[in-house]
């Protein structure tokens, strides 16, 4: 007999995602992912000046402000076929990398680690044993007995005070929690340290972007940062050297804490390399443009069908029609009017709400496809594409991570293990390490370019009469983001955002093929039906954020998590 589990909402961050699973004999045999809000944010942009679209676009979501701003200016620049000054590319690239690093660290430690780490078990740990384990994994200076003991005392006073706060919703003592008390204590210690470290990445964004959480320095055609060594209020060498110290601190944490922690959790939970693969068509886009035209990139992107990296095909640049012509959206299972799959430039957002119909319409999220098929996006797609393209830093960190996991698991763990729930976490940590190298490199390129006497940061956009269209693509922390704009007589005629969580939380498409979340849940073991920790592990591994995936706000506020079995 089948049991139906409904989790609503799934995330602790923006947006409302509902997941339904049918469980037979202790395993998920069918699943539905449903966006529970409708937002017509794109409608606000119609009729506006394209130069100001990014200011509104970065308000779509409180987590991904910077990424929407970047994709928006790129869409207009793409429509106008603009060149962007090198300094502007480098400054944007640094913002992109710093934001992604912050996002990856917060996702692992603060939004998903507690799916694997049991805080209450950490109270039973021996701090000495935990410290010696930590020192066998890395040389991080804050793995001392004293540091671990302090964390344990802090956790104790928290738990004894009855104020679990942020930890209140954890599945403590669940049979699927398998780490030793010492590993749990180590992870909790790094949880607290990561709160400090993520601030370093935010400081880089504040310095370059003039302000957080909403950056102020972008412009269609470049950035608004004046570069001047003589004025402290502009971007001076002094400030840039301070940014460098922040980058180094991030690198230290990623290499000595984040990557080893993910490898340790992956090694101890190596059975989770066998669950959660789902859709194995992987899509990512090139990122970190290195020239003014956006034709050369630090990180390549492309498409891998059926998990076969030998079939990788690159998306060459921002103009490549291999990407822009291949994307369309289906609404067969979404609460919108319309029949045929539409290209985003022709996209429509006319609501048609039914109720939740398992075989009909059941989500506010549209189903995007790449050449007619669903695709998984995100750090795993990005890392696999980079690996397939022979990107050396990615190969270095991926090989390092796999060898650490193998030694902890006591058996060889190969790249194919990345097609899994735990593999998505590993890929995110590998990507964070790659991004830190990229950030360093972009910093150096900026310094060198300013050294040559180039202080240009902005080219003025010229808008033609008549109609032009463009796409702004960006490899965001959660995967491929694209903003599609149609400009008619200097005003926005149509604007559609196809966001990473739309790809991943997609409902079934026109061919009734399930989206990545849905497909990834099939086969997941469920130990306790009314405590479906395993479902959360897999969905959280995608780093879901639905604020922007869904094209009005929920009319009625909901409880934190409700699980129904029937």
């Amino acid at each position, binding site marked *: 007999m089948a049991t139906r589990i409904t989790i609503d909402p799934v995330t*602790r*961050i*923006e947006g409302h995602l509902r997941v339904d699973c049918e469980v037979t004999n202790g395993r998920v045999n069918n699943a539905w992912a449903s966006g529970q809000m409708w*937002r*017509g*944010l794109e*409608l*606000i942009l119609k009729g506006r000046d394209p130069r100001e679209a990014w200011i*509104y676009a970065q*308000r*779509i*979501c*409180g*987590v991904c*402000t910077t990424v929407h701003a970047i994709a928006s200016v790129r869409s207009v620049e793409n429509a106008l076929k603009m060149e962007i000054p090198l300094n502007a590319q480098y400054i944007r690239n640094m913002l992109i990398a710093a934001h992604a690093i*912050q996002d990856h660290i*917060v996702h692992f430690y*603060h939004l998903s680690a507690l799916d694997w780490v049991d805080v209450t078990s950490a109270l039973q740990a021996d701090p000495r044993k935990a410290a010696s384990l930590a020192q066998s994994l890395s040389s991080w200076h804050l793995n001392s007995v004293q540091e671990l003991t302090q964390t344990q005392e*802090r956790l104790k006073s*928290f738990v004894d005070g009855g*104020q679990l*706060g*942020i930890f209140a919703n954890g599945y403590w003592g669940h049979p699927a929690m398998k780490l030793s008390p010492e590993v749990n204590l180590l992870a909790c210690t790094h949880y*607290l340290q990561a*709160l400090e470290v*993520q*601030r370093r990445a*935010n*400081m880089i964004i504040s310095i370059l972007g003039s302000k*957080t*959480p*909403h950056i102020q320095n972008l412009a269609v055609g470049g950035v608004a940062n004046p570069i001047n060594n003589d004025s402290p209020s502009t971007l001076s060498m002094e400030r840039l050297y301070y940014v460098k110290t922040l980058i180094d601190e991030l690198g230290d944490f990623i290499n000595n804490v984040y990557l080893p922690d993910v490898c340790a959790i992956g090694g101890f939970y190596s059975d989770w390399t066998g669950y959660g693969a789902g859709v194995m068509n992987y899509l990512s886009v090139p990122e970190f443009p290195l020239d003014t035209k956006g034709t050369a990139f630090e990180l390549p992107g492309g498409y891998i069908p059926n998990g076969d990296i030998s079939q990788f095909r690159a998306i060459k640049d921002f103009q490549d029609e291999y990407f822009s012509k291949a994307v369309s959206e289906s609404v067969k299972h979404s609460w919108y009017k319309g029949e045929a799959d539409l290209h985003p430039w022709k996209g429509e957002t006319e609501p048609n709400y039914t109720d939740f119909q398992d075989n009909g319409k059941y989500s506010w999220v549209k189903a995007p496809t790449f050449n007619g098929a669903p695709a998984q996006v995100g750090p795993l797609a990005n890392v696999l594409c980079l690996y397939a393209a022979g990107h050396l830093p990615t190969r270095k960190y991926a090989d390092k991570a796999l060898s650490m996991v193998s030694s902890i698991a006591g058996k060889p763990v190969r790249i194919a293990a990345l097609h899994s729930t735990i593999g998505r976490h590993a890929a995110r940590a590998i990507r964070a390490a790659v991004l830190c190298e990229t950030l360093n490199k972009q910093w150096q390129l900026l310094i060198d370019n300013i050294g040559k006497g180039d202080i240009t940061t902005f080219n003025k956009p010229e808008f033609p009469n008549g109609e032009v269209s463009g796409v702004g693509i960006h490899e965001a922390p959660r995967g491929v983001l694209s903003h599609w704009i149609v400009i008619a007589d200097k005003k926005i005629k149509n604007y559609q955002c196809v966001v990473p969580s739309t790809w991943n939380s997609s409902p079934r498409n026109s061919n009734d093929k399930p989206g990545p979340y849905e497909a990834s849940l099939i086969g997941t073991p469920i130990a306790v039906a009314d405590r479906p920790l395993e479902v959360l592990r897999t969905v959280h591994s995608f780093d879901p954020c639905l*604020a922007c995936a869904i094209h*009005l*706000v929920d009319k009625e*506020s*909901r*409880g*934190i998590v409700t699980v129904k079995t029937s």
Partner: protein
Amino acid sequence: MNVLVLGIGNLLLQDEGAGVRVVEELEKRYEIPECVELLDGGTSGIELLQYIRGRDALILVDVVRSGEACGTITRYDGDDVPALFQSKISPHQLGISDLLATARLLDSLPKQIILFGIEPKSMDTGLELSPEIAAQIPGLAECIAQELQNLGIALELR
């Protein structure tokens, strides 16, 4: 005394953005002394941690669904504030609840926490506040100026 006035909300969803509009109103109306920072927090959560640490007081401004008539201004303080964000009164419940809980975990929760809420009318897609809410923004800004006065900080009109 070091105070953060944090306006929260989404400007694209009409009255949802009232908290941010109040912060803008304060900036327009008053000379802001060094010891007060006004921040448009949008709909961010944990990213705001760096702004709330080291503060003696935190004044939050947000829309709050308390069941009163739309435009009603409500004031909460102390432990009521984190407790309120644990319930369902604000659309930013999770982000702010996690933010406050994390600050508490790090011993960096300001000693005084005050929340000013305003009851929304419409949270549909749109940049304009509904007229009933727009009419209350100057009054809410004055309430915050008065609160700062009670904390010993007098704001001069521009």
